[in-house]
């Protein structure tokens, strides 16, 4: 056994991804539009633009479309799902699960586990770990995990530049039916107060510089490094890697710290085009990679959620990817569908009170 072999998680029945789907809303707010309003254009924005949901969109509607795309790719009936789990920090209801509405809309009710998961930006991968366990134990043949957010930043706050919207859904199932087989996963969690939102507050608070080294980098790097160590893999064994993307620089630096080349993270690095989609972030990146991956490619996916923790997954793509990926729109199709809006339209869509500057 490897030195830290007991830290890696492997289901007793082999598990993989049998279907996946993404969703990104059509509206885009350019970073320069925010910068123009709050700093007179003095500060260069951290991302070029971010995806903004329309007035009739929320975590439930985005999850439904991503889930339908995942079902189309998996080619299974929705009533074969034994779980529909939605990870988010922007569920439309404080009490009343998003997952029940999503499950009903896709036709997965009534014989289904449905629940909402919370862990800042890693709520979606938290649901994915549980879905792996659900299938891996034999309790279910198929389980769906979704990560989606319509994140909000306080007007004028640094987060407002990056807080985007989007989501991704994954159906976990038996390895022999999978388009990507799970080699193993690893979770790394500590109590770190880098970012939070109190129960009745509208916007989150963050620990400023505290969000970097002890939070994001420490958890991502440890989860990825320990998973690769336990699997006996090295960065050069991976065709692709994708990390949580709060901005462009953080995942680039994390990749460098771990020994990955820029080409390995390029396909999944979407934050400059859609913003930080929180619980959707690393998962939408993973869908963009699966859209392009070839059989035999190995993928490393590592989330990060404030509070704080990371989930790392090592996957190997199978032949099934070839016929399944075009059963639903590709992630790039959603990104290409792009309508630029100004700050006034954005404020109206997002119900923001625009403060005097």
């Amino acid at each position, binding site marked *: 056994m490897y030195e830290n072999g007991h830290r890696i998680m492997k289901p007793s029945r082999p598990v993989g991804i049998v279907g996946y789907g993404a969703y990104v809303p*059509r509206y885009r707010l350019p970073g320069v539009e925010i910068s123009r309003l709050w700093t007179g254009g003095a500060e260069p924005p951290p991302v070029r633009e971010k995806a903004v949901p*329309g*007035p*009739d*969109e*929320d975590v*439930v*509607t985005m999850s*439904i*479309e991503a889930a339908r795309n995942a079902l189309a790719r998996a080619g299974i009936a929705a009533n074969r799902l034994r779980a529909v789990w939605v990870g988010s920090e922007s569920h*439309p*209801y404080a009490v009343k699960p998003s997952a029940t*509405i999503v499950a*009903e*809309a*896709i*036709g997965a009710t009534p014989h289904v586990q449905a629940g909402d998961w919370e862990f800042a930006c890693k709520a979606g991968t938290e649901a994915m770990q549980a879905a792996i366990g659900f299938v891996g134990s034999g309790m279910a043949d198929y389980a769906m995990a979704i990560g989606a957010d319509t994140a909000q930043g306080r007007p004028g706050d640094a987060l407002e530049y990056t807080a985007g919207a989007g989501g991704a859904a994954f159906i976990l199932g038996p390895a022999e039916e999978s388009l990507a087989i799970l080699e193993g996963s690893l979770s790394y969690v500590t109590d770190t107060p880098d970012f939070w939102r109190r129960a009745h507050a509208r916007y989150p608070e963050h620990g400023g510089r505290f969000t970097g080294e002890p939070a994001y980098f420490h958890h991502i790097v440890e989860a990825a490094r320990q998973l690769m160590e336990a699997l006996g893999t090295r960065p050069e064994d991976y065709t692709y890697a994708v990390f949580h993307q709060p901005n462009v620089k953080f995942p680039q630096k994390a990749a460098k710290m771990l020994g990955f080349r820029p080409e390995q993270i390029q396909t999944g690095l979407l934050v400059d085009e859609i913003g930080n989609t929180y619980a959707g972030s690393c998962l939408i990146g993973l869908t963009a990679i699966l859209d392009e991956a070839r059989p035999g490619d190995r993928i490393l996916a590592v989330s990060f959620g404030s509070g704080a923790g990371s989930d790392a997954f090592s996957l190997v793509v199978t032949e099934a990817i070839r016929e399944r990926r*075009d*059963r639903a*729109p*590709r992630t*790039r*199709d*959603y990104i*290409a*569908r792009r309508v630029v809006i100004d700050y006034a339209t954005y404020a*109206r869509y997002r*119900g923001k009170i625009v403060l005097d500057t």
Partner: protein
Amino acid sequence: MHPARAWRGRSQRYRLEGEICEGCGARLFPPRDICPECQRPARTPYPLSGRGEVYSYTVVYEPPAGYEEQAPYIVALIRLEEGPLVSAMLTDVGPEEVYIGMPVEMVTRVLHRQGEHGVIAYGYKFRPVLRRTVMLPSPSAPVTA
């Protein structure tokens, strides 16, 4: 809409579930249990594809209560691929972009919100068919470069 009324119709409203007449094969939407073509009972649930085209439309500038945040919006009659005409809101499209015959597809969106405290009503709307960069396996699906 009252929550109880909305709740009873959720299958048809969330995912455009209609009925099929076992007698003549007609597809019904909304479900009405009696076939309008042959007058026989038609109670078998049938999931409609959600694909169709704009048959006619009107732009709503002065919306009823609960719809203000979405105005101006478009209400259209959609001719579904399976035959039925259905009335629905269009989404992800402006009044200057819509036209008769526009290919559309069903999506589930927020229909209206009862203020800050009430229930959120979800249901079908139609949007312009998403442009794909890659050809689809289905022969009826559009292909754009």
